[in-house]
Structure formats: C-alpha cells, structure tokens
C-alpha cells in the first residue's frame, strides 16, 4: 500500500452506497471547490500530479472519515501554498473575515482571454505538447512483464501510479499506450520524463487468491514500472 488512497483490493468495505438520481453536487461548496480547482489547473497554478500527491498525504484516519471534495479542498490549499500562489496566513485571515460575512460578494475581476482558455480546456482538453514524443516502446502486446515494488513510500511527498496490489506481480501487455510524463518524476521535481504506458493484464487470481478464476484486472503502468518477466530477481524501485 502506497498510502491511504491506495485502496484496490483492501478487505472490509461494505455495500457500494448507490444513490439513484443524485444531484451533480450535493453541497454548493462542492461545486465551488470543483470549479476553483479546475480554474487553478487552467491557470497552471495547480498540476494534477501534485494535487493527487497532496490528497495522498492526508493521514489515513482522516482520509477514511472525510469525502472526495474535502480531499480536494485540502489538496488545493496545499498545492497553492507550496507553489507560493497564496499564503496560509492570508487564507486564515480571509476565513475569519468571511465568518462574519459569509455572503460577501466575490471580488470582481474580468479577463475574457482567461475565460476563453477555460472554455477551451473544458471542450478540447489539456493542449497536447507541440512535438509528439519520439520514443521506441520497450514492450509489445502479449509480452510478459514483471512489475516493480515501491519500497517505503512516503505519501504526500512521493508519488507513484502503480497500485500496491499490482506491485511485484507478473502480467501480460494488453495494449501499448502513447507516452505520458512519469508522475513519479514530476512530483520529485525531476521534470518531464515521458515514457510509454502499457495496459497490463493480470489474472485476478495472481493478485488475490480469493478472486474469480476467470477474471482479470488491467492496470495502466509506465515503462519504468516494468521489466521483462523471468529476467532474474525482482528489482525494486527507489522512490526518492
């Protein structure tokens, strides 16, 4: 387990809380934190890998007893303070001021150019890098691969996208996906290291002895999480 967020396969959870005809947002502040996080990403004041890492840094007991948009609020504040966009003191001070006047109007700032970029993000997504990454994929469909083991992860400071249940396992490449920046490196401040990503298929039984005999789980894994199967003692990956 890499941190409190790394939930795949954890036992003890009850029925899925399915809500029929649920609203898009259950509280008005959920809509505000959603939109504020999105707008901060558009403004490049927030990067999704860092946002995820901040969520992962929430202490496990707190993570389990709070909900999705509370994680987002925590993460947005951490990321904006870390990036120097806002200070904790300014946020605390503003909270105190708003406590006496919670319906105070938002400050006025128009910028049609920014609003247009927001629309472009919503409808066209994050712009692709101008130059496609030229790289040769190390693995091909049907290759057997072994996955890395992340030792002593430090949630909230280090980050990886290989779930705990898929570490130190053997699977088969199901799909070869286009290169993506290695999130581990982005969070570690090592910059953009694009690598091919592979949808690796595991027999569910190889992950959990009580899983269905026919079933399988596919996980998107970056090239550096993988090595050819049967190539000797399992290598471990330092996360520092």
């Amino acid at each position, binding site marked *: 387990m890499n941190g409190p967020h790394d939930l795949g396969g954890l036992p003890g959870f009850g029925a899925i809380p399915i809500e029929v005809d649920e609203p898009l947002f259950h509280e008005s502040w959920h809509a505000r934190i959603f939109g504020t996080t999105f707008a901060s990403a558009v403004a490049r004041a927030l990067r999704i890998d860092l946002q995820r890492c901040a969520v992962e840094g929430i202490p496990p007991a707190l993570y389990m007893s709070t909900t999705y948009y509370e994680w987002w609020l925590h993460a947005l504040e951490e990321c904006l303070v870390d990036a120097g966009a806002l200070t904790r003191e300014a946020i605390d001070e503003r909270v105190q001021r708003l406590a006496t006047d919670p319906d105070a109007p938002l400050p006025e700032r128009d910028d049609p150019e920014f609003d247009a970029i927001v629309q472009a993000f919503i409808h066209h*997504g994050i712009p692709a890098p101008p130059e496609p990454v030229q790289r040769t994929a190390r693995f091909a469909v049907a290759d057997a691969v072994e996955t890395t083991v992340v030792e002593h992860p430090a949630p909230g400071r280090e980050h990886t996208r290989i779930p705990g249940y898929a570490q130190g396992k053997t699977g088969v490449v199901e799909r070869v996906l286009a290169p*993506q920046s290695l999130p581990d490196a982005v969070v570690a401040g090592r910059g953009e290291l694009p690598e091919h990503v592979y949808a690796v298929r595991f027999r569910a039984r190889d992950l959990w002895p009580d899983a269905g005999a026919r079933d399988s*789980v596919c996980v998107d894994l970056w090239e550096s999480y993988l090595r050819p199967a049967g190539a000797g003692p399992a290598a471990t990956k330092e996360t520092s």
Partner: protein
Amino acid sequence: MTTDSQTAYAALRTKAIESLLIEAGIITTGAVDDICRAYEEDIGPLRGARVVARAWCDEDFKRRLLDDATAAMAELGVGGFAAERVVAVENTDAVHNAVVCTLCSCYPWGVLGLPPTWYKTPEYRARMVREPRAVLAEFGVQLPDDVEIRVWDSSSDVRYMVLPMRPRGAEGLSEEQLAGLVTRDSMIGTGLPIAPER
C-alpha cells in the same frame, strides 16, 4: 463523518481561496460558475450514449472507435477535459468490461460527465478489482459464470469507456432511440443497456 460545522468551515475556506485567487489575478470572478455550468448543462452521459448508439449502427465507426476512440469520438464532437485520450473496450458474450480508479477517481469527464458519488467511494475503489461479481450484483447485474470480468483500473491519463452489447430486440430502432437505451452505468460497466420495450 462530516458534521454541519465542518461543512460550514469547508464552505468558508473554499470561498476564501476562490476570493484570494481572483484578487491575485490567477482566476476570474466568472470562471467557477462557467465551469460548473458546463458540467451541469452540457457535459454528461448523453455524449457517451451517442457514441455507443453510433457504434451499434455503423460497423466502420465501431472499428474506428475500438482502434482509436479519441479520434472516432471527435467525429461526433465528443471529447474534452479528462477525455484527451480515451480507450473504448468492447463487451462480448465472453468478456464483460468494467472501469474503476482505485488510486483516485479518474473518469472520462468529456464523455460521461462527472462521476457519480459511488464511483469515488472507498467501497467501490477497494472492492471492484477484487470481487467484481459481488459488486455488479449490487448494481443488479448478474453475469453467467463463464463470462470473464475484465476490470480496467484507470491509473494513467488514458480514460476508459465500455462499449456495451446492443440489447436483443432493438432491431428497427433509430440511432437516437438506441442512444436512449444506453445508461451511464452501462458505459462504466456496472450496468447493462435498457432492454427495449416490445
């Protein structure tokens, strides 16, 4: 457990951050409203349903969708944020696909809109990879024992959608009528399309 006072505090803290970001010149006063409005009014599972209905009606489109879903969906104007790279996986008599994000809650926003709350809960994220048959049963989906359940854990920027099987008895329906049978959950893999009325 979230109490009323925690909710009130979270609302204040969110407003404080939004206000300070506006004053710092990082975002605009209208940005948050614009973003929420787009997901409330425009971007929802109807988009994905149009894609599925087209694939049911047009073999060539279906091939393009399974080969490069991002490009195929762009033909219908479907895509956008959190759908920059989409992979569509096809249900058959032998394989039933379903999507989860165990590490956070990645979901193809530009195709299906924002995820339902259950998709983001620890219950779904923990259990779907390990006991999918029991989870699907809670959604009312019973699959034959000889069907492989293939769960896609959405751990990268690629977003997955399920192409469900066209229900029996849907012959003669228009593409638009077919789209009406395609539920959000059938494109996550926790549901099946609605059976047409006979």
